[in-house]
């Protein structure tokens, strides 16, 4: 596989809505792993605006990010995988994402049930995505009525990455998904693994019981219940695809960023927040795991004083093993120092 071309270091100017809607991930002055799940859809007010009302969030980067996903899938089809028993879960995920889009942006998306299901038959639905000019009628479960595999088709219309977890024998298995914007992991490597195996490399979470508690929590989710959590890291460049597969393209950025001047550092280093949603899909009983990645360059972050101060404190205090796992050990000291140096002069 050929690595993708390196993006231009001149990141585009951040659109105002991407700052106002940025989910700042540090509610506390220090960061540790916790089972930090909360009910979805709660609005969080920040000094710059707010986030959190929608499960599937559409912002001004919609077109750009979908084009990037399509290009990645074209280059590397292993970012999309569906084990055979997950077919129903994929239809289920598609319907759920359509409903969430329609809830988030009723002006741009509508899903209409055209007729009733009776005696095990299949209903027809009409789906309209005005942002992409899609107006399509399909029959649930009939693959010939869709232009693509259901999960790949709907993930071409949301900015979120999607993993579908099957539950059997009391264990969750990552058996389907479309993941093009992984932060330092590989969906193609993880597909078919259990939830506990997937999280094997994460430090601390096992001894602290975080991951087994999360596993138990997810298994208890009832049909349609939706929860969320956040995670974070730092990324050099506005680069969504920092998956293991493309490491040769972005790995060298980590030492490189230590060599640039302060102005460039603030432009290149991004705080990356993942807003992750968990939804128990009704028909299949599978759990849909959504990962939405938001990138905000440090020079924009530093303009919001509360964010600057809090991010500097968290990054400076982060224990070394956690910084190492997040892949930021080489430059986190400079990142913290850079943020502190932006403090307003009294």
């Amino acid at each position, binding site marked *: 596989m050929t690595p993708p071309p390196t993006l231009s270091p001149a990141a585009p100017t951040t659109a105002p809505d991407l700052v106002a809607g940025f989910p700042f991930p540090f509610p506390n002055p220090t960061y540790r792993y916790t089972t930090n799940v909360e009910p979805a859809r709660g609005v969080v007010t920040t000094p710059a605006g707010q986030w959190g009302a929608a499960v599937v969030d559409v912002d001004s980067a919609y077109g750009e990010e979908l084009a990037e996903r399509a290009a990645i899938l074209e280059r590397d089809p292993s970012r999309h995988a569906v084990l055979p028993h997950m077919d129903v879960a994929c239809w289920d995920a598609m319907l759920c994402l359509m409903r969430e889009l329609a809830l988030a942006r009723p002006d741009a998306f509508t899903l209409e049930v055209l007729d009733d299901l009776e005696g095990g038959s299949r209903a027809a639905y009409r789906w309209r995505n005005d942002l992409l000019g899609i107006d399509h009628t399909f029959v649930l479960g009939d693959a010939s009525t869709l232009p693509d595999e259901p999960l790949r088709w709907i993930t071409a219309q949301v900015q979120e990455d999607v993993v579908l977890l099957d539950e059997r024998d009391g264990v969750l298995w990552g058996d389907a998904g479309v993941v093009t914007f992984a932060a330092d992991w590989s969906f193609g490597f993880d597909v078919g693994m259990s939830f506990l195996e997937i999280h094997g490399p994460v430090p601390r979470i096992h001894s602290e019981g975080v991951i087994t508690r999360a596993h138990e929590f997810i298994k*208890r989710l009832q049909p349609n219940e939706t929860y969320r959590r956040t995670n974070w890291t730092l990324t050099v460049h506005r680069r969504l695809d920092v998956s293991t597969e493309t490491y040769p393209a972005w790995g060298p950025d980590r030492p490189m960023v230590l060599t640039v001047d302060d102005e460039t550092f603030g432009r290149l280093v991004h705080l990356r927040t993942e807003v992750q949603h968990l939804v128990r899909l009704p028909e299949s*009983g599978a759990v849909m795991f959504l990962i939405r990645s938001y990138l905000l360059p440090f020079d924009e972050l530093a303009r919001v004083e509360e964010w600057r101060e809090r991010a500097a404190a968290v990054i400076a205090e982060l224990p070394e093993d956690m910084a190492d796992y997040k892949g930021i050990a080489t430059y986190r000291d400079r990142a913290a120092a850079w943020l502190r140096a932006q403090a307003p002069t009294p």
Partner: protein
Amino acid sequence: MNARIELVVAAVDDAVPGIRSLTLAAPDGGRLPSFTPGSHLVLDVPAGEGRPRRAANAYSLTGESIDPRHYAISVLRCAPVAEGGTAGGGSAWVHELVIGDRVTATPPRSAFAPVHLATRHLLVGAGIGITPLLSHLRSHVRWGREAELVYLFRDGHGAHVDELKELGGDRVTFLADRAGLAEDLVVRLADQPLGTHLYTCGPAGFMDAVVDLATELGWPSSRVHLEPFGVAALDPGDPFTVGVAGEVLEVPSGTSLLEALEDAGHVVPNLCRQGVCGECRVDVAPGSSPLLHRDLFLDEETRGAGDCLMACVSRAVPAADGRAHLEVTL
């Protein structure tokens, strides 16, 4: 987890003796949330009319699961204590409802879902235990999965017979007596393709017989699934004491730990009150007597730790010194 939805009784069908099929609709007539096949509603049964306290009874959903216009349940009337029976009166209450009555319930809860990796689904139900299996069969037919269903019922007392025939055709077998069932199952359970999963629901004795036969014929327990709501009423248990927040309460025989805590003014999150949902888990401190776990929720590992129990069904048993006492934290 304790959110409730309001539903209106839209239709009542009493055609099968002793069994009432209820059709419930959203008050605004809109579509209801989709649910996983095999799910149940937990209906709130108010206190009064011979019912000493409110109850929450679980009933399997039998109707369409995707974008449904209605929720459908079928309820066997069990004689309440007031009539010399042993039931709490919830099913008798359902049999008194009339069109237009409003009820509250949990949104559908799933505890008996089909396994998607199965190559084939064998459904074996008896009596009112057919209800979750009907929901499974509808889903299997929709998605083109291999499935067959065996349904044992007394002549003239079978719910959903026509519906099953129409839905499943020759995939459905009706049987009228236990001897016939045993004969049928010996052959059927011995001759299933690798990867078949077995699902059974009905009276406890019936499910035990199905599971025993499957075990005898070499079925691994991971491929055998039981719907736990058919469980018989638990025995009243021995009295014990409980220490909570510096106070000691008596828990008499016939009163649950949950009820004793509630009667003393403590708030304990709870839902099913029959050891299934996992809501009323209570932490137990060291120095407590051994625990008698009677729930269907906690796994063996958690039970082994001995530091919690489900307050709605589980109790203390006397320690070596004869004292039965729990220290709990809420």
